[in-house]
Each structure stands twice: as structure tokens, then as C-alpha cells.
């Protein structure tokens, strides 16, 4: 049923695209129709090209996602567990977000080169904050009743963090990771646009310059499919790991 709905939406969008092209009669070098773009995938050489560049962009996104999530989790736990760390690290976090990643892109390419590294750094940077903020928020909002209970049981701060606060914050972390998954491709593509020798962003710029508009749109399509696919994989994974999060776990304290 779900797959059927996804197929219907995809088919509907393709029809709309074709209809727009047919009705307006727009030139193929402005907006090629889906059939024209689809033909790119049948051309073996172009398909090889797309796959090669998609692999590069995909690894940038995946590495950035893993690195950004790890860094975000570590920072959130540090910030939540120690007030002095919170006072020193929070301003740094906020400043890091006040500078748009787009503005940092040229500097990162300058420092880390045209290769994978600068794009992974970009994706990591863009992911880091939503993950940290969401997880920290979850860690801060542990049900006070749970903390009271854990204290009467004689739990140390570290064990309460490990057995109560971190698990209780996992649903919040998972929302952070979902947001991160959705924005990770932005980091990678911005990096590729600013300076690169491979990746779907690079391919789009190149084919645009060479008026290979069909290849450009094919690259865009592949990117969109990758982003959507990644999101669904991550979403399904998180649901599997946190089966209790749909239930209401919280409770209130009175008086």
C-alpha cells in the first residue's frame, strides 16, 4: 500500500513534468522532458558517468552524516553532563551556526583541497548543530520523576546519565538525525559547487556549461533519489532501534 502510494506520487510528478514541457513548448535546453532525461540512463557511457559521480557524492554524504552525528552526540553528552563545559561550549556552538556553511565553503576547499575531505567537512558542519541541539534538548528534558527515582535508588550521576537520561533522549536524537539526513546532501553539493573534480554537483556544473542539459537533469534526479532513499533507510533504521518511542513515555510531577 505504501509502495503503491510512493509509485503513484512519483508517476504523477513525472506526468506533471511532461505536461508542463508539452503545454509550454519550452526548449529542451531550458527544461528537457522526462523522456529525454530518461534516455540518459539508457546510454551506457552516460550511465557509467552518473554512477561514478553518484558514488563520490554518496560517500561524502554518508561519511559526513556518520561523522556529524558522532561529533554531535559527543558534544551533547559533554554539554549536558557538565555545567562548566556547557558555559564554554554553547557560545562556540552558536557562533559556529551564525556563520553560514556556504560562506565557509571556499575556505574549507582552500584548506582541505578539492577532494573528498572538504565535502565531508562541509556535510559534517551542516549536520553537527541539529544533532547536538536535538540530543542536548532531549538530555535536558529527562522526566524529573525518573531522576528522583534514580536518586533514591542510589544511582551515581554517570550511571543515571547512562541508564536513564541517554536512553530517554534517544527519541529526540532520532529527530535530530532525521533532520541531519535531510540536510546532509546540501553540505556535500555546496562543497562540490565551490570546488571539486568529482561528484554529482561537479557533474551538474560541467554539463550545464557544456549545454548537456539532459545529463544535468539526470544528475539532479539521481541526487534526489539518493537523498530520498537515504532518508527512508535512516528513518526505518531509527524506528527499528527505538520501537518504544511512539508510546508516551513521559509523565508529570504534581505539587
Amino acid at each position, binding site marked *: 500500500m505504501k509502495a503503491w502510494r510512493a509509485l503513484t506520487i512519483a508517476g504523477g510528478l513525472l506526468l506533471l513534468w511532461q505536461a508542463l514541457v508539452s503545454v509550454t513548448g519550452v526548449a529542451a535546453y531550458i527544461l528537457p522532458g522526462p523522456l529525454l532525461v530518461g534516455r540518459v540512463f539508457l546510454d551506457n557511457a552516460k550511465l557509467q558517468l552518473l554512477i561514478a559521480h553518484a558514488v563520490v557524492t554518496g560517500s561524502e554524504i554518508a561519511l559526513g552524516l556518520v561523522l556529524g552525528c558522532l561529533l554531535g552526540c559527543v558534544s551533547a553528552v559533554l554539554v549536558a553532563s557538565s555545567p562548566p563545559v556547557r558555559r564554554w561550549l554553547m557560545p562556540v556552538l552558536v557562533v559556529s551556526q551564525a556563520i553560514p556553511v556556504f560562506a565557509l565553503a571556499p575556505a574549507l576547499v582552500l584548506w582541505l583541497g578539492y577532494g573528498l575531505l572538504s565535502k565531508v567537512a562541509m556535510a559534517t558542519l551542516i549536520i553537527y548543530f541539529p544533532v547536538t541541539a536535538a540530543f542536548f534538548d532531549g538530555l535536558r528534558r529527562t*522526566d524529573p*520523576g*525518573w531522576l*528522583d*527515582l*534514580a*536518586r*533514591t*535508588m*542510589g*544511582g*551515581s550521576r554517570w*550511571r*543515571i546519565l547512562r*541508564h*536513564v537520561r541517554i*536512553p*530517554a533522549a*534517544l527519541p529526540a536524537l532520532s529527530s535530530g538525525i532525521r533532520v541531519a539526513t535531510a540536510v546532509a546532501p546540501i553540505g556535500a553539493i555546496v562543497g562540490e559547487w565551490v570546488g571539486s573534480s568529482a561528484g554529482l554537483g561537479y557533474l551538474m556544473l560541467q554539463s550545464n556549461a557544456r549545454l548537456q542539459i539532459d545529463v544535468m537533469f539526470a544528475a539532479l534526479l539521481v541526487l534526489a533519489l539518493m537523498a530520498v532513499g537515504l532518508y527512508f533507510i535512516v528513518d526505518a533504521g531509527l524506528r527499528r532501534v*527505538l*520501537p*518504544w518511542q511512539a*508510546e*508516551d*513515555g513521559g*509523565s*508529570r*510531577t*504534581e*505539587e
Partner: protein
Amino acid sequence: MPNTPAPTVRLHAASLDYAGAPVFAALDLTLPAGQTTCLLGPSGVGKTSLLHLVAGLLPGAVGAAVDEHGRTVQGRVAYLAQQDLLLPWLSALDNVLLGSRLRGETVSPAATDQARDLLARVGLAGREGDRPGTLSGGMRQRVALARTLMEDRPIVLMDEPFSSLDAITRYDLQGLAAECLAGRTVLLVTHDPLEALRLGHRVLVMSGVPATLGDPLIPAGQPPRDPANAALLGLQADLLKTLSRAKARQDAHQP
């Protein structure tokens, strides 16, 4: 019966301010050894705060609960709240074993067997592996009771543990709790005069701003008492009148 003898718990000259106004000042409370003391009073009078103070969960307050030898009771207290405070990501069995985890003890097979026995004792044999989300409110509070018994503390503090349950479940659980907690020093905070009369060796009414404790009411016979007892129903009517007057005074004091 608990493993360690139940102490008499004393609180002397306890004071607590909230938002600049005294909640209670120079308050004395005695919980006789091995007996259940029930605390009644209008909402917002400070019953829960007093219970938290005895539990050592109120850092801003003056006064600490001690036993008859003047030693602190911290570490000898188990806490059962209105919310079951079960961790939704743990099974019923693991929730019962939470205290051992928080103290960093390795969970021995003997401890696991004991937790299973306690779950069976509260009527949940066969539900050990179920997560709290799949259990009813009454079952969840039964797991919380088993968790309290697993802690095997000589002092048990209960904050309206049955108030969110339906009448029949509440009646059953009151009987079960009285049976399981016999011989311990128990403080039960409740809204329900009949519950207090059914379960308490002594019933105290807390009222006024700042709050004071009335003279203890000692109903005849041993708890759990039969709620159909005519003398008990008479006392309930008296208590309701007292509480109603206390509430009126409380309301008159609100700005």
C-alpha cells in the same frame, strides 16, 4: 518483612520556602517504626514536598529525616510515585532490576529470579518481557510496586500511588501494597480519606499556610481495614469535613 529492621523516621523543624513564601516552617513529623502513616491535605499544601524532603530529594529545604539514633535515612528509602515511572525502553523485568543497574551491580541469576518472583507476587507472571507501553495502568503500577519491593528498603515513601487507577484496580492494589509493605515504615501521601483510613496505622492532616500537621488520627484495628466498616465510614465523613474546611482556608489564602 524487610531484611533490615524498619526505623522510626523523624523530621525536626523542617522548613521550605517556595517563591518567597513559606510552604511549611518548623514542621515536625514522626513516622513510627514498621507502621504506615498516611498524609492527607488539600492540593498544593505541600504534601509532596514534605515527602520529597523525607526522601532527601529537596536540596532547597531546611531539615533532614533521621532515624531514632539520629542517623540519616538516605539510602534506606524506596520511592513510589503517582506516575509509575517505568522506563518505556525496558521490559517489566528490567524495570524491576533498575536499581541494581543504577548502582553498578552485576545482575546475578539469583537477583533475576527474585525479580521474577516479585512480578509473580504482584500478579504479573508471564509478563516479564513486556514493555510498559503494552501494559495497562494497573499492571504498570504493579510493576512499580515490584520494583519498590526489589529495592527491599525499610522505609517506603508513596506519593498518591493509586490515584490514577480505576476504583476496582485501586482497591485490589491497596490490599496488595498493604500486604507486601507490612513491617516497613511507610509514608503514604493521598487525596483519598478512605484510602488513608484503610491503609494507615495513623492518619495526619496537613493544612494551612504555612502548613502544619494536625493531631494524628488512629483508627481502630490493623490495616488493611474493611472499607465497609461503619466506624471507618464515620471517620471518613469527619475527615472530608476537615479537608473541606482546610481547602476553603487554602483558597482564601490564594492571592
